[in-house]
């Protein structure tokens, strides 16, 4: 009797509630019963976060691997041992620690931390950002050679490197700057970490993830069998920063252990096209012309920055779509104007939240303004890069020996074996 009454009551309540309540919100509809059987209520378990120990271990492993890689490349000059260390890094940072945190994405945390005072950046992100850069500043990109798991997995599959034509390499070489600039802008403006989002290898390290990205990772690895480290050379945004540091580095690997005898044997030994050949001596009359050209190029840099800045700042509408608030505002606008009948989970959630559309639109407009300002910065940066590239082309590079290009050399030690002086050195050591 009581049971039936209760159920009909519940049924009526259900029907009324279903009409008004689109989303589940807590509401004490049924009071907690007074148990007569002495039943004791269970308690909820709240397990705490994993300890920071792994973070500390990661930082320690990073530091030791970097030191070891540097020693192996600059002092020991052993490709075999660098390869072994690289496999360890692939196993540890890649498959064991599942590719997170990694140095390649860490600059986004740094950018985000500077623009969002409420965000406490993880200690590991700070170290994974700074340590490879500082090592590059002293010894070149030894991080790329043997510590980066993304580099390691590509290096591992490289079986028959072909030379990428110079013009193609130059065009593709622009992409990392663009990727770096975009990633910093999105991180600063709170539109997510795109380098993490589109990491093609993390899914492989985890044996799972988005199908498209794993497919992309597979494509990179397939391409990587003939093109040396395609991600590192034509996408990696952190590689740009490492290149800057390496260019200024105190020490750097050299192809020959002592002197270059111009035998040209190392010319084709680099799968990454990072060996600079000796330059021809310049006739005197061309020198003055080169100087004038250089001056013009330097004066053109601010112009490039302005033009690029203006252009990218006009892209605020498509770029700001990456931001959740702007994307939501656009969807709501479409729905309100009757241009679409299909609602999304996000728009349903917004309508259930009780926020007004005016409020949302005001936020979206403000964010879009930030994207316009960010576009000036991003464009200015790209203009600066483009201008400085022109400057460096019009400058006469003077070089007498075969040397690794400090910006692009990954210190992988492949070229050492092709140098006859290296064989003399090894023989003299026994």
């Amino acid at each position, binding site marked *: 009797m009581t049971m039936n009454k209760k159920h009909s009551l519940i049924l009526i309540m259900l029907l009324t509630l279903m009409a008004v309540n689109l989303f589940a*919100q807590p509401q004490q509809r049924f009071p907690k019963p007074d148990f007569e059987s002495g039943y004791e209520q*269970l308690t909820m378990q709240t397990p705490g976060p994993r300890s920071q120990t792994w973070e500390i271990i990661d930082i320690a492993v990073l530091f030791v691997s970097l030191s070891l890689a540097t020693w192996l490349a600059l002092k020991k000059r052993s490709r075999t041992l660098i390869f072994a260390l690289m496999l360890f890094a692939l196993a540890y940072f890649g498959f064991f620690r599942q590719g997170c945190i990694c140095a390649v994405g860490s600059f986004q945390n740094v950018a985000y931390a500077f623009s969002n005072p409420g965000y406490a950046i993880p200690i590991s992100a700070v170290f994974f950002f700074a340590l490879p850069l500082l090592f590059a500043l002293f010894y070149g990109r030894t991080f790329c050679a043997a510590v980066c798991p993304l580099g390691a997995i590509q290096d591992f599959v490289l079986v028959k490197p072909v030379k990428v034509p110079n013009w193609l390499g130059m065009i593709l070489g622009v992409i990392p700057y663009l990727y770096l600039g975009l990633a910093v802008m999105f991180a600063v403006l709170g539109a997510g970490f795109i380098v993490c989002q589109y990491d093609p290898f993390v899914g492989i390290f985890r044996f*799972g993830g988005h199908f498209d990205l794993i497919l992309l990772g597979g494509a990179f690895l397939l391409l990587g069998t003939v093109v040396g480290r395609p991600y590192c050379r034509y996408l990696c945004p952190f590689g740009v920063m490492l290149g800057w540091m390496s260019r200024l580095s105190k020490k750097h690997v050299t192809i020959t252990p002592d002197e270059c005898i111009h035998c040209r044997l190392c010319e084709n030994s680099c799968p990454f096209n990072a060996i600079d050949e000796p330059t021809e001596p310049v006739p005197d009359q061309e020198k003055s012309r080169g100087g004038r050209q250089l001056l013009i190029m330097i004066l053109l840099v601010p112009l490039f920055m302005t033009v690029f800045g203006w252009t990218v700042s006009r892209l605020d509408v498509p770029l700001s779509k990456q931001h959740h608030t702007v994307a939501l505002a656009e969807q709501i606008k479409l729905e309100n104007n009757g241009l679409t009948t299909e609602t999304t989970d996000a728009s349903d959630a917004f309508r259930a939240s009780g926020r007004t559309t005016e409020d949302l639109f005001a936020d979206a407009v403000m964010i879009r303004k930030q994207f316009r300002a960010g576009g000036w910065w991003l464009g200015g940066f790209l203009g600066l890069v483009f201008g400085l590239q022109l400057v460096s082309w019009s400058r006469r590079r003077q070089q007498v020996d075969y040397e690794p290009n400090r910006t692009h050399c990954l210190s992988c030690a492949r070229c050492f074996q092709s140098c006859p002086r290296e064989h003399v050195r090894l023989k003299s050591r026994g």
Partner: protein
Amino acid sequence: MAENKKVPRRDFLRSAGNTAAGITVGGIAGLLFATSSSKELVWQLDPELCVQCERCSTECVLPQSAVKCVHSYSMCGYCDLCGGYLEPDAKSRDTSAENQLCPTGAIQRTFVEDPYFEYKIDEELCIGCGKCVKGCGSFGNGSLYLQVRHDICVNCNECAIARNCPAQAFRRIPADTPYILRGEESDRYAREI
């Protein structure tokens, strides 16, 4: 003459650039280190914002999501006709699979006393889809809700679920208070901390 001047100038520029870059990177790292050591953050979802879209069960990078259903027992009505446990069109109110809302049968229903039943989540089985949360919140007290379980969560740099959450219910919260709970559990949790 010009050749002799060239090399030292290049060296000088490189060394100056090296020092400047070193100070910049060191400065950034030092500054961030000072702020980062103050507090650690972890990902959590706010149950008040959650819309039970089921993405938690599919977007997490782990093979089985770190998001699980939790139960604030203090808020539960211990109903026989449980909106979180039973399919809306369930033929009968018992534990047979076709009547259960949960796709993995992760909710254990135990008889307490007439007419009350206890509902307990088996986290080994729970995939964090939130079907029960929707049922409980729509027809019941909302004592079932989703939380990131920190013994499972690997605390990714950018949480993949957070990126795809339509309600933007995920945020980073201090690691010393890593849950956002409801009911008496919330008060007790706050006291314990």
